[in-house]
C-alpha cells in the first residue's frame, strides 16, 4: 500500500469516525443509551459540548503543521482539511442548538445577543469567518485561488483566537479551563511565529551567502570570506 492509499483507506476513515464520537456520545446521552446522560440541563450540555468539541478540533487543525514538521511526517497534512471541516460542523451545531433549543428560535433575542453581548458577538464573528474557509476547502477552489488560498486560510488564526476568547468571556468566574485553551493556542501560534522568524533568518543568511559568493568572484576570497559571515545574533 502506498502512503496515499494508507491515508485514503485507513487513516482518513479512522479520523472521520473519531470526529463523530462526540456527536455519537451526545446522541447516547439524549436517548439514554449506554448509560450516558445529558444531566439536569440537557440544552446547556449539548450547547457547551458542541462548542468545546469545535474548539478542540480547531486546535487540533492548528496542531497539524507543528506536528508534521517536528515529527517528520509531512503526510499528516492530508488529515487537516477533514479536521477543519469537522470543527466547522460542530460550530454550526453549537450555533443551531443555541438558536433552536436555547433561544427557541426567538430571532429578536438572537439579534440583541449578537449586537449587545460581546462574547456572542465574537463567537458569531468566528462562525461567519469560518464559512469562506469551509467553502474554499475543495481541491478545485485551492487550484482556482492559487496563492491567495493560503492568505485567505490564515484567517483560521483569527478564528481560533475569537473562539477561545468567546469561551473565556462566557465563563462566570472559574476561568481555568478557558485559560488552558488559551495556553495551547498560544503555543500553536507561537510556534508559527518562531518558525517564520527563523525562516526569515535562514533566507537572509542564504542571500548574504549568495552576495558573498558573488563578491568573491571579484575580490580575493581570503579577505572577504570571514568578514561576511552573518553573526549569530541576527
Amino acid at each position, binding site marked *: 500500500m502506498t502512503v496515499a492509499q494508507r491515508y485514503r483507506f485507513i487513516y482518513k476513515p479512522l479520523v472521520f469516525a473519531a470526529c463523530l464520537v462526540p456527536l455519537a456520545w451526545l446522541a447516547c446521552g439524549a436517548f439514554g443509551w449506554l448509560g450516558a*446522560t445529558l444531566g439536569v440541563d440537557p440544552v446547556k450540555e449539548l450547547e457547551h459540548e458542541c462548542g468545546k468539541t469545535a474548539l478542540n478540533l480547531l486546535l487540533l487543525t492548528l496542531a497539524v503543521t507543528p506536528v508534521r514538521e517536528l515529527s517528520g511526517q509531512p503526510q499528516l497534512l492530508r488529515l487537516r482539511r477533514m479536521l477543519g471541516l469537522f470543527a466547522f460542523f460542530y460550530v454550526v451545531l453549537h450555533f443551531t442548538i443555541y438558536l433552536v433549543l436555547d433561544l*427557541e428560535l*426567538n430571532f429578536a433575542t438572537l439579534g440583541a445577543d449578537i449586537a449587545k453581548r460581546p462574547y456572542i458577538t465574537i463567537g458569531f464573528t468566528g462562525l461567519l469567518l469560518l464559512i469562506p474557509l469551509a467553502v474554499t476547502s475543495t481541491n478545485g477552489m485551492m487550484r482556482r485561488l492559487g496563492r491567495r488560498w493560503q492568505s485567505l486560510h490564515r484567517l483560521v488564526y483569527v478564528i481560533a483566537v475569537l473562539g477561545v476568547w468567546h469561551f473565556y468571556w462566557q465563563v462566570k468566574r*472559574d476561568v481555568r479551563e478557558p485559560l488552558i485553551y488559551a495556553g495551547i493556542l498560544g503555543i500553536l501560534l507561537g510556534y508559527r511565529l518562531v518558525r517564520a522568524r527563523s525562516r526569515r533568518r535562514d533566507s537572509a543568511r542564504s542571500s548574504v551567502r549568495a552576495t558573498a559568493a558573488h563578491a568573491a568572484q571579484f575580490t580575493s576570497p581570503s579577505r572577504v570570506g570571514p568578514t561576511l559571515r552573518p553573526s549569530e545574533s541576527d
Partner: protein
Amino acid sequence: MKVRVPRIAPSDITPEEVYFSRRALLAGALATGASAMLRAAEAPPAAGAPLSYTVNAQYSVKETPNKLEEIAGYNNFYEFGTDKESPSRNAHSLRTRPWSVNVYGEAEVRGNFDLEDLLKGQALEERIYRFRCVEAWSLVVPWVGFPLSSLLARFKPTSRAKYVEFTTLYDPRQMPGQRVPVLTWPYVEGLRIDEAMHPLTLMVVGLYGRVLPNQDGAPLRLIVPWKYGFKSIKSIVKIGFTSQQPRTTWAGAASNEYGFYANVNPQVDHPRWSQASERRIGAPFLAARRPTLPFNGYAEQVASLYQGLDLRRNF
C-alpha cells in the same frame, strides 16, 4: 457529560416504615428502653430524614415544583467545585452536626449558638418558591423553613443594625472547592435589615419535606425569592448585624456584574447576558424559555421596599 449511576429500582428500596421498624428492632436488641430512646433523640438528622411542617399555601406559587434530582443535582455551590454537578458529587464531606452559628454585631443577644437551640420553637413550613439564578435559568422549589425575621428577632437587633451579614462555613477539608481561589473565601452575603425582616425571606432547613441535602446548603441556608440565587447563601455559620453595607462576595469579585441588591430585574441586563428571559430547568424542549418577571414575580410583596431607589444603578 457524565455517565449515569445505575438507578435503584423502586422495588429494591426498603419502605421507610420497614426500615425504621428494623432499626427499632435492632435498637431494642442492643439496649433496652430509655437508653435506646435517648440515642435515637441524639442521632443527627441525616440529609433526607423526614421533617414535620405545615404547608404555607399563601406564600406558595401555583407552578409545578422541579423534581428533587433537578434541585439536588444542579447546584452552584463553588465550595464543592464550579461545575453544576460538582456539589452533588462532593458535598458528602460536609458535616452538618454539630453545627453552631456565631451571632455578632449590633444586637443585644450575641455569641455562639448550637443549631438545635436556634431551631427550637421554630414552626417549620413548606413554601413553594420560584428560584432564579443570575445565569438565566430557574427552578420551582418546595423549601421547608421558617421566616428569617422570627430568628433575627430573638437576637434583639439594636437601632444601629441597618444590615445583616451572613457567612458560609470556611473549612477546605470539608469544602474542597475552597482550595481553589475562584472566589474570596469564606462566602459572604448580606441584606438590608428590612429585606431580612420581610416575611418572604426564609431560613431553610429542608427540601421536599425532608432534611436539606448538603449540596443545597445544609444545614441552614437563606432563601430570598425575589433576588438572584447567589444572594441566598448556604451553610451559614455566622450572622452579623452591621451599620455598614456588608462587602459581599460576588459584588467584590466583579462589582460591574453583581450588585449588592441583585433583585431579579428583566430590565437590567447582566453585562454579558440578557436577564429578560430565563430557561426553566426540566421544562420540555422548545417550551422552557419564559419571560423573567420583575422581582421574580414577587413585585406585589416587595417592590415597595425599593421605592425611590434607582434599580438601574443599584442592580
